[in-house]
């Protein structure tokens, strides 16, 4: 028979090392050891339950079957289990955004945990502030973007990636033709702006659905989030351009004939002289205009002037044709020589003679002209614009006198 000490010793060894095999057969114990044996089994069960709970906690398993009430050995571990369950719940609430959770009476851990929550909450409040500011700024921006007429696009200088595109600009970029034109233009400007760090002003002309629009563009080099970028601000100046063109036309054109006026013609003449261009200058005079005005009225006289103007424009599409007086015209043409000019004007004169005027009204239409060459190749002294015009005028009078002489001989 095993000794009592041996039985108890084997049992305790199994309790510690192989709890699944720990069995104490009370029948083998003498009567005076029966109660002790029962208490030892109870104690051992308490230890084994505690050990099981400790192992589960060590693995982070909180959904474990807890030792039953009455196991006082396991009580501190059950308290730890309760604390861990509570911390798990609290952490879940924090993850859901509840920063009111606080841990009490867990020593340094409580302090660290509560500090963490406090800081998380402060950061959250700071972020909320920031979000609020951003929302305000976005709202302000959207209001501004809705109010201002400029289109804005911001592109990365190195990659051409679009970092920001205003709504109106987006719509243009989505259109097939204008979008392609705009993309190419942006690319060209981006390449041109490489290495520049000052605002650059330019213009853009773009056709959309057959209508040409003009844009004044300012290009702003930026550094945004560590990236080099260009902000293009486009202002539609089409109506201003149209008004400017009208004013320009009013300043440069003769109101009756829509040919250039004397001021513009003299400006071109002086410009060409300054540039040492070779060209011809022709002074053209309408014959018999005074007679038509006096006998047939100024309305018919104006018709006569218009008739000459139309024919002159058609015959000289590459020349600058100006009405410089009531019946006087100036014609400036590059790449023509004097003979070529005379030939053309003679053709023009003959065309006029054959022109049919208003029904029932008949009078002789014709022109007189004088042509002089101007430029480095022309012979004679260097003359000023007004002197050149006088010289051409003189030639015209020579032509007119010769013409009248021919007419008198023919009349005899």
């Amino acid at each position, binding site marked *: 028979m095993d000794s009592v000490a041996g039985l108890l010793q084997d049992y305790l060894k199994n309790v510690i090392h192989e709890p699944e095999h720990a069995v104490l057969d009370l029948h083998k114990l003498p009567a005076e050891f029966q109660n002790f044996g029962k208490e030892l089994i109870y104690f051992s069960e308490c230890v084994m339950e505690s050990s099981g709970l400790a192992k589960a906690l060590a693995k982070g398993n909180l959904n474990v079957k*807890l030792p039953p*009430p009455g196991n006082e050995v396991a*009580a501190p571990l*059950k*308290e730890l289990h*309760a604390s861990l*369950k509570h911390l*798990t719940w609290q952490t879940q609430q924090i993850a859901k955004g509840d920063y*009111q959770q606080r841990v*009490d009476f867990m020593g340094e851990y409580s302090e660290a945990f509560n500090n963490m929550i406090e800081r998380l909450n402060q950061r959250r409040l700071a972020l909320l502030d920031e979000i609020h500011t951003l929302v305000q700024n976005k709202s302000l921006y959207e209001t501004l973007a809705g109010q201002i007429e400029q289109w804005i696009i911001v592109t990365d200088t190195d990659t051409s990636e679009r970092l920001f595109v205003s709504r109106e600009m987006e719509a243009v970029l989505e259109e097939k033709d204008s979008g392609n034109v705009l993309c190419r233009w942006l690319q060209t400007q981006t390449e041109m702006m490489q290495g520049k760090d000052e605002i650059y002003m330019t213009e853009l002309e773009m056709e959309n659905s057959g209508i040409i629009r003009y844009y004044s563009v300012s290009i702003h080099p930026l550094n945004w989030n560590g990236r080099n970028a260009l902000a293009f601000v486009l202002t539609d100046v089409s109506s201003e351009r149209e008004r400017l063109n009208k004013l320009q036309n009013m300043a440069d054109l003769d109101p009756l004939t829509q040919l250039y006026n004397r001021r513009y013609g003299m400006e071109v003449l002086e410009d060409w002289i300054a540039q040492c261009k070779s060209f011809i200058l022709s002074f053209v005079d309408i014959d018999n205009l005074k007679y038509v005005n006096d006998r047939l009225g100024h309305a018919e006289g104006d018709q006569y002037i218009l008739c000459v103007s139309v024919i002159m424009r058609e015959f000289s599409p590459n020349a600058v044709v100006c009405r410089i007086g009531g019946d006087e015209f100036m014609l400036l043409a590059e790449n023509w020589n004097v003979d070529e000019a005379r030939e053309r004007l003679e053709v023009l004169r003959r065309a006029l003679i054959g022109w049919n005027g208003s029904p029932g009204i008949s009078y002789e239409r014709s022109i007189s002209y004088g042509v002089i060459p101007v430029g480095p190749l022309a012979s004679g002294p260097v003359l000023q614009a007004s002197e050149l015009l006088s010289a051409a005028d003189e030639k015209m009078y020579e032509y007119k006198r010769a013409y009248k002489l021919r007419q008198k001989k023919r009349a005899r």
Partner: protein
Amino acid sequence: MENTLKQGTSHNIFTWENLGDIKKGRAYLGEDMPVLVYRLMQYTMLDVLSKEHGDEKANEYFRQAGYLAGIEFAKNVLDLQVGFNTFVANLQKKLKELKIGILRMESFDDLNGDIILTVGEDLDCSGIPTTDETVCYYDEGFISGILEAYTGRVYSVREIDCWANGDRVCRFQGAAE
């Protein structure tokens, strides 16, 4: 002759107001007292009630008293209009302030309302000898009253671990009916 100047209703019928102005009434001794005194009243009352009505009936009286206290406490001390998490945080804070115990939430089922929570250093039982029984019947009622006042649902709360049966925290399980 009847005192027509009396302030409250009968003290045999509980009202929050009848708890009185403790500050005024205890100008020198103050509002606090040792836990010993609380337990002296608690366990002597339990003794008398048990002898008079039996243990089970006595425990049930304690549970009902706790329930009444929980309802009144929630109505008069807690904000019942806040979200659940805020409510729990406030309750936890208030129980600590009043030294009733250290409340810790273990789980709450959003769908069915089932709840498990623990109370450490419980006013009723922490430190009492182990007797292999649960004793916090008053707390069971107290917690169910608070939960009912907040959720509007009737709660059945039972203590599953208690200092008296060898544990170090009292664990309560509540189920909404």
